């Protein structure tokens, strides 16, 4: 435990570890301090000059992000001197800013807008023309750069230098003409974080831009099911669908960041081709069907289940409760590894988000979760069987899944339980039945550390009530 010190900020007494960052201490204690360049996940640059404070006994204001906490410090950020300083600084930040807020995607969560309302001068004193820079630059990895909107906080430069160590971004030229530029194109797998850390609208996401205004969105704090890391994320959604995924700070798992793959895990949830109800496959055409018909087709057949690794602990438990004591075969389909085991930052090759939870549930219920167990089940399939296959929620490797489908073909009735889009691959099944997607259920999954990560329910776009345990009750009808 590090030593704690007491200091006062605008008369309020706060506590912070000795020698820790002064600005961070204020922000952690709920004190609002305007800042652009400071980010607790990056090194200190001290270039935006917005977080100026005065300290008793120190003659001049100084930036709090570049100071450390000491016992008994008396800090003020609300004096007339500081107010004037912040106002003047913001004026300089806005000198060449194009003010294209109506067409800017950052509007609503923009540092310039927020601080302008608080520290703005309102009357422009500019008589010179603004310096124009290149807008709409596609710098790769779904990131768009607008050099005009940039205030040169250098967060993106430090991110590519310190976190991904790929060094793509830099500030070129000098003075008024200084601008952010990308050396060739972005080549790291964490590029979307640049969009998150950009305090203004200079870096925006090509995937999200022009889709929704941020004030029409609500965030659901959940967990990424893209790989076994289980990053803490928030999904922005409204009744029209889910629109983006952003990381939420979690010091035990993902810190401030998340990978680019995880940014697209929301797509299937509100996709127009999302499975909404029971569907029958008639000569390759998916036709809405009555659930009772599906039940009738399963009747008298021996039921076999192949579960995926993207279900929650609760779903596994409920499912095994439903099939308890019945003559049923259950196996687990695990997705193959994709890429290196661990890339050194966050991304893991194992794309099975709840493999540990699944294994524990299988062992508790006395079923074999190994590949041998799956092979056994596949080998014993005959025309008197009804096979339920839970389609992996994020299907990284469709080819690998197709080999599984091939082996299921002998079964009399083949049923896919899917929460994603209606893929062409699924034509091999007789019926498709919907199950809730990760955004439509509460529950927990176990990540690679064995830590329970929470999934939280947002809005419902498909099926939310009929999970695998509901279909587990269809055993040997």
């Amino acid at each position, binding site marked *: 435990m590090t030593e704690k010190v007491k200091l006062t900020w605008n008369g309020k007494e706060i506590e912070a570890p000795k020698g820790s960052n002064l600005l961070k201490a204020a922000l952690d204690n709920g004190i609002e301090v305007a800042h652009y360049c400071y980010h607790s996940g990056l090194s200190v640059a001290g270039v935006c000059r917005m977080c100026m404070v005065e300290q008793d006994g120190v003659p001049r204001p100084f930036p709090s992000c570049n100071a450390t906490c000491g016992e008994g410090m008396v800090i003020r950020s609300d004096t007339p001197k500081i107010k004037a300083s912040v106002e003047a600084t913001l004026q300089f930040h806005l000198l060449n800013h194009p003010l294209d807020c109506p067409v800017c995607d950052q509007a609503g969560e923009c540092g310039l807008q927020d601080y302008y309302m608080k520290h703005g001068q309102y009357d422009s004193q500019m008589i010179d023309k603004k310096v124009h820079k290149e807008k709409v630059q596609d710098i790769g990895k779904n990131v768009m750069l607008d050099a005009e909107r940039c205030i040169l906080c250098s967060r993106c430069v430090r991110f590519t*230098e310190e976190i991904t160590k790929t*060094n*793509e971004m*830099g*500030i*070129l*030229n*000098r003075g008024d003409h200084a601008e952010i530029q990308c*050396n060739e194109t972005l080549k790291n797998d964490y590029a979307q974080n640049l969009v998150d850390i950009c305090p203004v609208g200079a870096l925006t996401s090509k995937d999200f831009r022009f889709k929704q205004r941020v004030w029409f969105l609500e965030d659901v704090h959940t967990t990424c099911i893209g790989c076994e890391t289980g990053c803490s994320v928030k999904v922005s959604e409204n009744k029209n669908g889910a629109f983006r995924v952003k990381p939420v700070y979690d010091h035990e798992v993902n810190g401030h960041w998340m990978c680019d793959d995880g940014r697209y895990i929301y797509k299937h949830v509100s996709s127009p081709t999302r499975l909404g109800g029971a569907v029958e496959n008639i000569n390759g055409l998916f036709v809405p069907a009555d659930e009772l018909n599906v039940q009738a087709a399963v009747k008298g057949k021996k039921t076999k289940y192949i579960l995926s690794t993207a279900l929650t602990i609760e779903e596994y438990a409920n499912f095994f409760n439903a099939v308890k004591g019945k003559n049923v075969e259950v196996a687990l389909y695990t997705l193959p590894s994709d890429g290196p085991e661990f890339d050194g930052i966050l991304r893991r090759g194992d794309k099975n988000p709840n493999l540990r939870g699944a294994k524990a549930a299988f062992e508790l219920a006395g079923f074999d979760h190994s590949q041998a167990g799956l092979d056994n089940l596949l080998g014993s399939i005959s025309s008197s069987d009804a096979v339920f296959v839970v389609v992996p929620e994020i299907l990284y490797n469709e080819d690998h899944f197709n080999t599984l489908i091939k082996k299921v073909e002998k079964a009399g009735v083949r049923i896919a339980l899917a929460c994603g889009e209606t893929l062409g691959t699924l034509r091999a099944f007789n019926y498709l039945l919907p199950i809730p997607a990760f955004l439509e259920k509460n529950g927990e999954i176990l990540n690679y550390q064995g830590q329970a990560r929470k999934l939280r329910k947002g809005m419902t776009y498909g099926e939310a009530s009929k999970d695998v345990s509901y279909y587990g009750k269809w055993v040997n009808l």
Partner: protein
Amino acid sequence: MSQTEKFEFTPDRLALYKEYLTRYDDIDSALLPTLHLAQEQNGWLSDSVVAYISELMGLPSIRIKEVISFYDMLYDQPVGRNIVHVCTNITCSMFGGREIYSGLLKHFETGYLTPTRDGRISIQKMECLGACEQAPCMRVNNDYVGNIDLQSAISKLEELP
């Protein structure tokens, strides 16, 4: 800008570079003299020069490009065989420095830093050369030429190889 042929320091320049490294505490500080050394050899700092220095010094190429774009006397575009700096800072301006600069551009039918058609001269407007006592002043390669007027400046530049 790109340059097709590969760049490499000549052995004596490489020795000089190694000497630079002993002058500073960290390698970043040696970047500026190294860039001047490379520019001396190649005339300008093309992408292949940046790539060579990036590998030589172990610095990311964007850091080197940042430095090049910051300084006016480091060129990221091809320049003429001779570099002419015309001072347009206060004292020289008072003595007609700006008019000399625009007159020279007109005479040699060129623009800021653009090499003349024969590739002989690049003319660059410069801030203070620190030679106010001989205003208006210009710098031809490494020599100051002071107390010029447009006519004497033109005849001086016409003599250049």
